[in-house]
């Protein structure tokens, strides 16, 4: 399984290791260059000393070197080598330490002498400098001689230099390994600590069940990087809680809507069986009403299920809005008149929709029936067709609704009356209308004005034919 902590540990350690190798190599390289330069400077000084001691005389180049000249600070423990030639190959002088061996006659001009590594007599590693020069061609009396070119090669044991470089290599390698060894637990510990909030978040998330959806993750105590995730998780929990609450409400409402008429039916029958009375048409009417109420609810639930599963076949046709609204309004007109409602129709006679007439009729019947039912006595309403917006609005005054109710209007089985008294309306009409509107490619929304006017908007422009 992919682990962020493992991946980060590996990346940090690899990066850190490469950095260590690079820095170690750089340190080694620059130290080596510096030490070699210092070593070469020593060789050059000795070569220049020999050059200054060599003189051109009557009998050729004269050279005399004091015995303890090369002894240096170690008292001559480290052997030093030199050899002085004429350019024709004649040896002018050489150190005793060379015994029978010869130093190679590599050289460069005095301004840019040649340096190289070589094996010294005895097989030890050494380093040498070689340069050509013109010995001083004037004696103490001011007599001048013809200048004759000479070559000097000075070599020295470089064992101490190599030992210093070896020690440096060892120190750098050990330091690198030790640093890595310390870095591994430090990085691990640091990542563990910085990932602790993630672990806490995971544990809290795992503890959330359907019964504890009100839980929210603490945002303020989270690291900055986790705050957006935590906020999104809290939003998600909020939506989940709302959805669960809606489902719970739906189940409870459905239980009530089904159980109450069943209880009515059962108790009616049991009472009649226990204490039979003479045939009473009222009892049969009651039984029929209960059956019709349950049938209406079951029919609506089934229609909604079919609608949600898109199992209602659509037959689009050209529908003239005004005649359809008139047809839907006619059975409601009596009730509206009884309540002394004033409804105005602002729908042009040529308003037309290309849609399924049956479903549209069902939507309009529900919207208009609700408007008549819930408009208070002497209230008013309006049915308006907005051609440009492709929208039909049904507005009416209401008295027991407030803005907080609007988001619930389309919930299945929602009723303003929490006691759910009476069985004529079970709260499925608007939910069903919205499902049907969705099937037709329409949108059904609700709005609420401060003036206690509820407006339902049937937006039809989603359907391209209805523009």
């Amino acid at each position, binding site marked *: 399984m992919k682990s962020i902590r493992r991946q980060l540990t590996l990346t940090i350690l690899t990066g850190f290791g490469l950095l260590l190798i690079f820095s170690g190599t750089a340190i080694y390289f620059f130290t080596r260059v510096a030490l070699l330069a210092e070593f070469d400077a020593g060789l050059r000084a000795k070569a220049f000393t020999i050059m200054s001691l060599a003189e051109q005389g009557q009998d050729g180049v004269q050279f005399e070197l004091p015995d303890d000249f090369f002894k240096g600070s170690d008292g001559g423990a480290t052997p030093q080598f030199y050899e002085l030639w004429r350019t024709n190959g004649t040896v002018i002088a050489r150190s005793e330490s060379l015994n029978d061996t010869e130093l190679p006659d590599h050289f460069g001009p005095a301004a840019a002498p040649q340096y190289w590594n070589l094996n010294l007599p005895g097989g030890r590693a050494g380093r040498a400098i070689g340069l050509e020069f013109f010995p001083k061609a004037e004696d103490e009396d001011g007599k001048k001689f013809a200048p004759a070119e000479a070559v000097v090669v000075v070599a020295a044991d470089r064992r101490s230099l190599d030992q210093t470089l070896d020690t440096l290599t060892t120190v750098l390698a050990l330091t690198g390994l030790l640093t890595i060894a310390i870095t591994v637990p430090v990085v691990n510990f640091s990542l563990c600590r910085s990932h602790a909030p993630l672990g806490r978040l995971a544990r809290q998330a795992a503890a959330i069940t359907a019964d504890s959806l009100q839980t929210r993750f603490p945002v303020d105590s989270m690291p900055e990087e986790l705050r957006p995730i935590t906020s999104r998780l809290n939003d998600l929990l909020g939506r989940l809680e709302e959805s669960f609450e809606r489902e719970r409400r739906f189940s409870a409402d459905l239980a*009530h809507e089904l159980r109450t008429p069943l*209880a009515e039916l059962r108790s009616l029958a049991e009472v009649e069986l226990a204490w039979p009375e003479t045939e009473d048409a009222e009892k049969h009417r009651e039984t029929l009403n209960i059956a019709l109420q349950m049938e209406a609810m079951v029919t609506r639930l089934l229609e909604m299920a079919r609608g949600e599963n898109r199992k209602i076949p659509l037959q689009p046709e050209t529908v003239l809005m005004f005649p359809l609204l008139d047809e839907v309004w006619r059975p409601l007109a009596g009730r509206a008149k009884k309540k002394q409602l004033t409804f105005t129709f602002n729908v042009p006679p040529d308003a037309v929709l290309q849609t399924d007439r049956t479903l549209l009729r069902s939507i309009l019947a529900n919207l208009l029936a609700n408007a008549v039912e819930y408009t208070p006595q002497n209230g008013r309403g309006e049915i308006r067709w907005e051609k440009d917006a492709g929208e039909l609005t049904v507005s009416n005054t209401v008295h027991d609704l407030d803005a907080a109710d609007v988001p619930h209007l389309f919930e299945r089985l929602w009723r303003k009356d929490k006691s759910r008294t009476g069985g004529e309306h079970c709260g499925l009409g608007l939910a069903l209308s919205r499902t049907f509107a969705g099937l037709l490619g329409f949108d059904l929304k609700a709005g609420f004005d401060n003036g206690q006017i509820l407006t339902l908007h049937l937006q039809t422009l989603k359907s391209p034919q209805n523009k």
Partner: protein
Amino acid sequence: MRVLLVEDSQRLQKSVGKALHKSGYAVDTSGDGEDGLWLAESNDYDVIILDIMLPKLDGLTLLHRLRKKGRQTPILLLTARDTVEDRVKGLQMGADDYLVKPFALQELLARIQALCRRHYDSKTNQVVIADLEIDLTAHSAVRAGKALDLTAREFRLLEYLALRRDHIVTRDEIETHIYNESADLMSNAVDSAICTLRKKVEPLGSPPLIHTRRGLGYTLKEPS
């Protein structure tokens, strides 16, 4: 026994009310929580049957207010809410029983009877006073081995006296527990009912069991 039924479904009010009435209970009904609370506070009921989802004031709030005021009337919640949480909540708020709709009428009546018994600290369905045996479940009474022919109301009166045996029961208490609020009672209705019951419970030659305490009321007890 007097029962208050608070239920917003008119149909259930009618059918359950009728069943209770036929079983000999005095029944008052109410269709909303506010009216139900007023009735429950104003009268001394033996049992209250209470729906939860009620207009104006929900059943649980009604229950809470009654208990807060110290009313210990047994309450049976009769509701469509069937989840464990709903039952637990109802019982924790002070209900004595919980029945989910739809329900069997016999079960409802049996539960009401059990609540009545519990209200009067009676553990059994049989009350025996001398040679009078009263079966509270079968709604029957036998005196000296002979079954008594009692109407539902007569049986309820006998049952009420039996549950409060050896105690003096006042006329007001009998009125309150045997007759419903709408009954148009004549001033001597209780005395008349006791007289009728006496004739049936104490046939000629039988020792008297229903004793009159002048100025106080009546008591059902073994002959001294």
